[in-house]
């Protein structure tokens, strides 16, 4: 379950559907597990009437966590050495997310990946990079 440097080429991609029709319940689960109880993620009344957003929205770290699943499925368990992202747009309940890793370089037993997660409208919600050990 790991990648071989000799079988990787720059431009190779791996994509996965992360979630379809994101539910508020999943956002609540993430709040509970992570300890980030900011009400803008779980409290529709507060978020629409006080914070001024159209709806609660996902933690950026939920999107990063879900995108991490695509990465570990691709590179193998325990192989990641670096993973960093920017949150470029908010993720709302009902969103369907797809994440893609693209090989940017393979050197000295390390694959460098570009990472992008988009919603159902093709809007990028997360952009980042990752590195992993390969055989």
């Amino acid at each position, binding site marked *: 379950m790991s990648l071989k440097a000799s079988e990787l080429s720059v431009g190779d991609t791996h994509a996965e559907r992360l979630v379809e029709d994101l539910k508020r319940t999943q956002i609540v689960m993430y709040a509970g597990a992570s300890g*980030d109880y900011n009400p803008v993620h779980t409290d529709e009344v507060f978020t629409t009437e006080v*914070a001024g957003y159209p709806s609660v929205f996902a933690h950026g770290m939920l999107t990063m966590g879900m995108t991490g699943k695509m990465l*570990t499925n691709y590179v193998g368990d325990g192989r990641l050495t670096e993973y960093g992202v920017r949150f470029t747009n908010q993720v709302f309940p009902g969103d369907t997310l797809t994440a893609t890793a693209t090989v940017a370089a393979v050197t000295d037993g390390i694959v460098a990946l570009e990472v992008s997660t988009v919603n159902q409208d093709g809007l990028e919600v997360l952009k980042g990079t990752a590195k992993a050990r390969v055989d």
Partner: protein
Amino acid sequence: MAVEKFPVEASHIMMFARSIGDGNPIYYDDEYAKSTEPGGVIAPPTFAQASAQFDPNHGLRPKIDGDGWHGSGGAPSGAKPRGERKAGGGGGGGGGGGGLHAEQRFIYHRHMKPGDILSSTSKPGKTWEKQGRRSGKLVFSESVTEYRDSNGELVVTATSVGVRTERPVDQG
């Protein structure tokens, strides 16, 4: 975030993996995990964030017997009527303009696993400003957190960038 003692626990890893929709048995099944390269259960790559649970002063958690959490209760803001408030309310995050998470980076020196007793120290990094198209002036600030095990070995380095916006992010 700086946390004096972050015990990495199997059930916490299981719940965290469920919350991100990751059904990989390496996050909950000891027997399966023995057959994998790591040789045991490990934590998902973003698990360091859950150390917030062990920060006694975490600003994004309502405090037991605390006052002033601004999620909705009787009123949408959660604020109590004047006169019922105790001194020193407050609470984390949210707000009209407010703090949002802009960037996050992790360096894995090794992966966290159940049984680790970690501690972390945080130091401020860079700060910078930008004029945002959809939310007014943006103020970014970086924080670098090092998670070490009980032998003092570095496990994960986490860099978080927060942004404060002048007003809520315009939609569309």
